[in-house]
C-alpha cells in the first residue's frame, strides 16, 4: 500500500519500562518495526501510534534519531488509547505511522550552550535533543538540564538523568519532596532563576505543562534570553498528522506539519489556541 498515509506499519513492543507509577503513570515503550525499514526521524518529530480497536494517539518520539534499531515513546496514561498502551505486554504489536512535524534545528546550534527545561512528561519530546547533544558532545558548548516533577516518584528517566551527570549539569526539582530528596524543592521556573544560566551563546529548549512554560518563558526573558533563543513544542489534538483533518489548526499553521517545534519568536505570532 505504497503512498497510503493513513495505513500504519506494524511494530512490536520489545521492552516496557515503568517510569512513573500512580495516577499520572508514565511508561516507556520500545518499538521495533516488524517488516520494512520503518522510518527515520528527526529530533522533535512525532508518530501516530495505534492500538487497533481503540484508535490512534500522537506521541513524541523520545529516542534519539541516531538510534536506528528501535523507537521509544514515553506515554502517560490519560485517555482511551494511552490507557490501552499501559495494558500492553512485551511482544504485543501496535500500529505506527509517521514521522510527523518539523524538528528542533539542532544543526544550527553547533557551538551553542544548551539549556533544557522540562516538566512532567515534557522531558520526552526534548529527550532526543539531549541524547543527540550528549552523543555529539564536541559539537556543543555546555549542556544544562533542568527537570522537575510533582514528587520524587514523578521524576521520569531517573536512571538516565543520573547517567547524564558529568556530561551535563543536571538540576532536578520537585514541589512535594519526601524525606530522601536532596535536590531543589519548588517549581522548575524558580529553580531556573536560582541557577541563572547565562543567555550568552545559549539556546533554551523547554517543554512541559502550559503553566510551567508560561513562567519558564517569563524567567528566561528576565535572565536575558531573546525570543529567538527559546524553543518549545506545541501539543494539540491531532488525527491525521498531515495537515488535513483541521484539528490542530492554530492560525495559519497546522501544528502537525508546521510544528510541533516553535521558537518563541514564531510562536508568539500565532493565536494562543494551544
Amino acid at each position, binding site marked *: 500500500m505504497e503512498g497510503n498515509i*493513513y495505513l500504519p506499519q506494524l511494530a512490536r513492543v520489545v521492552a516496557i519500562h515503568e517510569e512513573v507509577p500512580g495516577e499520572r503513570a508514565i511508561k516507556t515503550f520500545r518499538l521495533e518495526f516488524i517488516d520494512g525499514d520503518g522510518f527515520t526521524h528527526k529530533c522533535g518529530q512525532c508518530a501516530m501510534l495505534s492500538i487497533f480497536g481503540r484508535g490512534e494517539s500522537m506521541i513524541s518520539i523520545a529516542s534519539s534519531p541516531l538510534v536506528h534499531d528501535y523507537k521509544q515513546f514515553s506515554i502517560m496514561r*490519560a485517555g482511551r488509547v494511552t490507557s490501552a498502551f499501559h495494558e500492553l505486554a512485551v511482544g504485543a504489536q501496535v*500500529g505506527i505511522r509517521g514521522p510527523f512535524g518539523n524538528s528542533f534545528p539542532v544543526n544550527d546550534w553547533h557551538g551553542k550552550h544548551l539549556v533544557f527545561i522540562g516538566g512532567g512528561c515534557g522531558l520526552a519530546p526534548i529527550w532526543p535533543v539531549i541524547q543527540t547533544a550528549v552523543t555529539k558532545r564536541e559539537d556543543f558548548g555546555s549542556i544544562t538540564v533542568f527537570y522537575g516533577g510533582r514528587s520524587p516518584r514523578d521524576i521520569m528517566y531517573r536512571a538516565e538523568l543520573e547517567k547524564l551527570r558529568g556530561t551535563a549539569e543536571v538540576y532536578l526539582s520537585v514541589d512535594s519532596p519526601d524525606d530522601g530528596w536532596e535536590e531543589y524543592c519548588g517549581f522548575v521556573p524558580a529553580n531556573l532563576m536560582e541557577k541563572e544560566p547565562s543567555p550568552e551563546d545559549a539556546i533554551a529548549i523547554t517543554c512541559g505543562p502550559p503553566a510551567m512554560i508560561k513562567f519558564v518563558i517569563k524567567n528566561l526573558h528576565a535572565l536575558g534570553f531573546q525570543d529567538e533563543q527559546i524553543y518549545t513544542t506545541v501539543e494539540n489534538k491531532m*488525527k491525521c498528522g498531515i*495537515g*488535513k483533518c483541521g484539528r490542530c489548526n492554530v492560525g495559519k499553521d497546522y501544528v502537525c506539519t508546521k510544528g510541533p517545534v516553535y521558537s518563541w519568536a514564531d510562536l508568539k505570532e500565532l493565536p*494562543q489556541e494551544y
Partner: protein
Amino acid sequence: MERILDKGRLGAWVAALADWTVLAPAMQDGLWAYRPVAGGEASLTLGHPNTVQPPKGQSFPQREVFFTFDETPDGQPRLTPLVPRPGPRLVFGVRPCDGQGLTHLDQVFGEEAPDAYYQARRGTLAYVGLACNSPPSRHCFCTSVGGSPFGEAGLDVLMIDLSDRYLVRALTPVGETLMTAGQGVLTEAGADDRAEAQQRRLAALAHPQRAVAAPQAVPERLKAGFGSALWERLAQPCIGCGICTFLCPTCHCFDINDEVASQSPVCGSRVRTWDSCQFPDFTMHTSGHNPRADLGARLRQRVSHKFLYYFENHGVFQCTGCGRCIIACPVGIDIIAVVNQVAAEAAAMPPADS
C-alpha cells in the same frame, strides 16, 4: 469546444455517456440532492437552484473506511486496506461556487502528503457545471469572494442556460471527451449563441448580490479583530450543530476512529468521518484543556480559517459564497454579517502601532 444542446435532449446526452455513472440534482423528500440518473431519462431537467449539499461528498464522503483490522490466530493485528476503485462518475449541474469549492478540496487533499482515498475517488470524477444566470439564493455572495456566477474553476464542462437550449463549453480534456461522446446530440454553436451567452454572463455579473464588504481588506481586519468581543456576542445563539461546516463546499475537517465489531477476537474498521470545528470537543485535549473552549473562539475559527488563515497560505478565500451556511443555520448566524461586522469594527480602531 462549444456546442449547443436543446434542453429536451439533455437525457439523450446522458444516454450517450454510457461509460459513466451520471449523477444529477433530483428533488427527493423536498430536498435537492445529487442522485444517479438512468440514461435517456426524458424527465431529466436541471431545475435546481442549488443542491442542499455540495458535491464534495463524491470525493470526500461523510463516512469512509480506511482499512479493516482483525486478529491472526496468534493474536496479532492484521490490516486490510480498502482504497476505493470507483468507475468513472459524472456530476451534472454543479454550480460555479461548488466548482470553486472543489479546487480547495483538491488543494487540501493533494498538497504535501496526497490522500490516497480522496485521490482515488477524485481521479475518476468529472463535473459538468451550470452557470447561474441569476443568483439561485438570496444569500449568494460569490462575486465578493473571488467567484463568478459563470466561473469555470474545478469544472470540466460549463453549461449556460439560453432559455430553450444550453451553450455547452468544454474546459478540460475530460470535458472534450464528454462532448465528443455526445456529438450526435450536441450541435454547432453559432455567433448568435455565443453573443447570447455573453449577454447572460454580463447580466449575471451585474445582478445584485449580498456581499462581503471591502474583501481585499478582510484578512488584515480579521487579524486586527482577533480579540474582538463581537465573536462571543455573535456566536451566542450557536447550538454547535455543525450544519454550517457539513454543508460547506470547502470544509474538510475530519475525525478518525475505530469502529469495533468484536472485542474478542478484535475485529473492526478504522473510519474517517466528517468533523466540525464548531463541536466543543473538536480541539479538547485528553487532559480536559480546550484551546477553543467557547462559542466565540469556535465561530472565529470557522470564519478566520476561510477569510484569514487559508488566505495567508494560499492567497484566496476558502469561502465560495454559496450561502449554504447562512440558509441552513437554525439560529440565523450569518457569515457575511459576521465578517462585515468584525471587519468594520477593526477598520474603525486606531492602528495598533501609532
